[in-house]
């Protein structure tokens, strides 16, 4: 419609005349096609920037993963060794252990993050003063730097920290939250989930508030119980949101390193190494840049798969519009 109006107002602009039978819309789309191509130039700065600052480094990462790179040879010609770094990574017990930790970490952060967020959204749906304050408090905590939140929890879980003061008070003694070879990974993962819950709450809350009140009211008139309302009305209604959010949470958990770095630095020993963290520490604390790169490439492959799944679902309707 609009393009027709424009064509009428400015006939001289459309230099390429289409046959009248095809009509004005055809000419309009051709003109806007030219405008669109010119508009695409605005993508150029970002494209150049990302090719130089992300694309090229990624190529370097893959090249380093195929070579023997140490601190001494980092800025010199690299000796290519084929897949040796990958063989070394897959063959080492630390790698398998880090893989296990990554799976525990992702499951916990995903599970607690999603369930906690949905529950918190349920109880924070109202518009009362207290709920508004509580939601703001949670989002504020979420917006704090992870290094700040991680420091607080490192202190809370320390032998002099609040959790152990309470634990000693109730008679369970001092708990080595961050110093136990088997348990530390759970501590760090739970804190990570804690930091993510405000975000999932916000998203779930928006989805819950978007449900047509008539549907909920109809259920109430029919006498459904509260848990039935949650199970049969609210949960199904937020399922599309939950899918996209769930993928984001898996990625968030997988790539998370800040809480590990601040709270345990991968330790004690190797007890809290996840795959991405292991790749980092091989490179920057063992100075095995080649091996670190190989582990990072393996971790990146996982992200690649998730990115494809995510893009397919989120951009499904792009072409149609």
């Amino acid at each position, binding site marked *: 419609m*609009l393009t027709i109006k424009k064509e009428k107002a400015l006939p001289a602009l459309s230099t390429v005349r289409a046959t009248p039978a095809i009509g004005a819309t055809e000419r309009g789309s051709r003109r806007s096609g030219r*405008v669109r191509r010119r*508009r695409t130039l605005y*993508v150029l*700065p*970002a494209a150049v*920037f*990302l090719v130089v*600052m*992300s694309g*090229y*480094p990624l190529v370097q*990462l893959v090249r*380093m993963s195929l070579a023997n790179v140490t601190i001494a040879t980092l*800025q010199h010609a690299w000796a290519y060794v084929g897949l040796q770094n990958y063989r070394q990574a897959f063959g080492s017990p630390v790698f398998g252990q880090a893989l296990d930790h990554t799976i525990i970490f992702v499951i916990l952060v995903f599970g607690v993050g999603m369930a906690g967020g949905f*529950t*918190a959204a*349920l*109880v*924070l749906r109202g518009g009362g003063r*207290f*709920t508004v304050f*509580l*939601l703001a*408090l949670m*989002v504020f905590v979420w*917006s704090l*730097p992870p*290094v700040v939140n991680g*420091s*607080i929890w*490192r*202190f809370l879980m*320390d032998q*002099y920290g609040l959790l152990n*003061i309470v634990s000693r008070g109730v008679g369970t003694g001092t708990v080595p939250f961050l110093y136990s070879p088997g348990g530390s990974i759970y501590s760090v993962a739970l804190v990570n989930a804690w930091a993510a819950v*405000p*975000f999932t709450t916000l*998203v779930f809350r928006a989805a819950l508030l978007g*449900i047509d009140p008539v549907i909920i009211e109809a259920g*109430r008139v029919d006498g459904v119980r509260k848990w039935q309302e949650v199970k049969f009305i609210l949960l199904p209604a937020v399922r599309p*949101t939950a899918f996209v959010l769930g993928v984001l949470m898996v990625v968030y958990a*997988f*790539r998370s*390193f800040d809480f590990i*770095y601040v709270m345990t630095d991968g330790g004690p020993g190797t007890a809290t190494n996840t795959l*991405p963290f292991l*790749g*980092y520490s091989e490179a*920057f604390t063992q100075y095995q840049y080649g091996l670190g*790169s190989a582990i*990072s*490439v393996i*971790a990146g492959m996982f*992200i690649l798969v998730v*990115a494809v799944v*995510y*893009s397919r679902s989120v*951009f499904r309707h792009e*072409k149609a519009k």
Partner: protein
Amino acid sequence: MSKGHLLTAERKRSRRLSNNVGIESPGGVTWSLRALLLVLYALPLFWLILTSFEPPGNVGGSAIEMLLFKPTLESYRAALNGGLLDAALQSLIIAGGTTALTLGVACSAAYGLARVTASGVVLILGALVGLQMLPQTATVIPLFQVFGAVHLLNTQLAVILADAALLTPWATLLLRPFFRAVPEELEESAALDGASQFRTFISICIPIARNGAITVGTLVFMLSWGEFLYAINLILSPGKYPLSALLAEQVTEFGSNWPNLMALAAVTALPILVLFIFTYRFLRSGLTLGAVK
């Protein structure tokens, strides 16, 4: 019996009437969960503030000893002497620079991609998603090598460039719907009035997408304020660290002087609090929009 029935029916009816937005009046379970959330999110902050005012020898006793104390500014003074102001300045330069660069590049790209519907656009958006999801622990390895090769290590510029590269894909994806929401008629009439495309972008589209730019700008600032992995590895002398890197280094290396560490954490958090107060309403709506299309 019948009276009791009547009463419950009456209560039910009034409850239904009282909430026309479909929210039950909260019961005991709801209130206990709310209380739990309050404890989980307020108590750590309270303990942070409390500890930062403790005299150094006071941590380690019982809760009562922790609560009954004479507040002291000693820890803040110690932080101030430990290069706090320099670090804050570094943080400001890095976060400010990253925000300016990311917003500039991402707004332009979001505008450029807003109306593209060709089949290739899904590929571009997918690539942005992939870049956005890459672990930072992976990208820091080649960035260390690349910045070393061009002699940019140990500069704030390296951290700004790395942070902006990390955040630009995400910022572009988040901004795109805002530029999409600009009415096409408006852009066309601007063009009819003789405005160049750049002029239309600057004085029509940017003002309309303002809320998006504020949300994204705030988040980019917050994220680059807190970023420490690039800072710790790309800046070689700890004297040039921003606050986040300083805190990360001190917590991992001398993790025992808790009042000092909590004071440093409080100072690192303070600018975020100020920013949060001014931008919460944008964040609340913008975040949910961006997360789930």
